[in-house]
């Protein structure tokens, strides 16, 4: 299992360029706000087309401007968890989860939804709407909805950023548990240093629309390749201020 990402994009005067690859691991895109981390996830998921580039998942070319390939998001097998979770307010917990089980038989949908509800500790909440459940429960619904289709990779756009500290730690542990049950590549966007260092198998440091450094967290912390990376991994107070 692997994912190649290479893209160039100019958007509203912001020039973005990145090139990296990951295996079946948890990769963290880490860096200042506005460095192009969320943009990367959108390009991988097919929500935004790069100006030029090449994106490949498990041997399947998703985007290649030279070959004229640009698969729509519907044909790309990603589970995507948005920063605001994007739960459908007009659907119940069960409705949201079932909506993710697209392209399966009715029996299979029900069976998988049952499994997900059990696995994500949502029993008893099936008929509730998103304004009737807690922050942690909302997170679990969003993950269940993204994973019920058994996607080939999981994309997480700062899903824990709005949580308070104890819940954030609980969700980070939960994510590691999910990794054991769903052994697929995960790309997590964050600007939280602790989160990045705790969770990452591979750290991809972004800055100013570019990839500054790729490596294991310990490598990046011990040997930052430039002052910008050093500032990022040693002085987390700077985050979000640039």
């Amino acid at each position, binding site marked *: 299992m692997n994912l190649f990402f290479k893209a160039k994009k100019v958007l509203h005067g912001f020039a973005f360029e990145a090139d990296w690859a990951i295996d079946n691991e948890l990769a963290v895109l880490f860096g200042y706000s506005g460095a192009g981390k969320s943009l990367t996830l959108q390009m991988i*998921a*097919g*929500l935004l087309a790069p100006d030029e580039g090449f994106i490949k998942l498990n041997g399947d070319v998703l985007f290649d401007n030279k070959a004229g390939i640009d698969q*729509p*998001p*519907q044909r*790309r097998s*990603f*589970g*995507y968890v*948005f*920063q*605001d979770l*994007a739960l*459908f*307010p*007009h659907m119940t917990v069960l409705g949201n989860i079932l*909506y*993710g089980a*697209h*392209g399966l038989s009715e029996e299979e949908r029900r069976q998988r939804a049952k499994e997900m509800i059990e696995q994500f500790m949502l029993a008893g909440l099936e008929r509730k709407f998103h304004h009737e459940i807690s922050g942690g429960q909302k997170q679990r619904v969003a993950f269940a*909805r*993204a994973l019920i*289709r058994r996607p080939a990779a999981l994309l997480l756009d700062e899903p824990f950023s709005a949580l308070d500290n104890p819940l954030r730690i609980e969700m980070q542990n939960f994510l590691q548990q999910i990794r054991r049950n769903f052994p697929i590549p995960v790309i997590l966007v964050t600007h939280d240093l602790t989160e990045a260092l705790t969770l990452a198998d591979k750290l991809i440091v972004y800055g100013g629309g570019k990839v500054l450094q790729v490596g294991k967290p310990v490598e990046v912390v011990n040997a930052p390749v430039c002052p910008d990376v050093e500032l990022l991994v040693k002085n987390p107070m700077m985050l979000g201020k640039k």
Partner: protein
Amino acid sequence: MEHPVLFSLVLSIRVAAVATVFIVFVGVAVAFFLSRRDFWGKELLDTLLTLPLVLPPTVTGYYLIVLFGRNGLIGRFLFEWLGWSIMFTWYAAVLASFVVALPLMIKTTRAAIEAIDENLIRASYTLGHSEWWTALKVILPLARKGILAGAVLSFARAMGEFGATLMLAGNISGKTSTMPLAIYSAASSGDRVQANIMVLLFTLIAAMFLYTANKLNKRVLL
């Protein structure tokens, strides 16, 4: 023989109801394309369809005569093929109401669709659902209040249509005399009692619709 007040009331409701059915289908489709698609001449189309909102209804009516009159650009062919003209029938009142009230539907529905969080639509795409399925299962249900408010406002506007209806359908007693037209006839012929009854009845109905529309969509200020 049916009482003229009752006839006008029933005709007005029938005209407004039929017009509203068409308005909902056309208005939702147009609003959807205006808010979700980019195409050449998009704002021009929006302006053209919204124009009846600001034009005097007589001007709109005049355009409709130019188009649908017996010698009109479209009406000529209808008359040649079917030997039938829409002019001075209750269908003409429906057509006039449709054109005049459609902008209200488009405006409210477009605003409701554009207010939907883009991430909800993107989430639907990443879950494998097509644009059409997303429109049906996410966009329209989330815009339903705006759509309902638009429909109620359009119905009220269609009920009250006067100028364009007069030009296109005429004011034929017992045939095309909708309530606003009947009120005009009663007032100009000095029949105060009938005019008073109809005016009060109409005010009550209009107020009821406006109240409902406001309840449905507090963001819409029209």
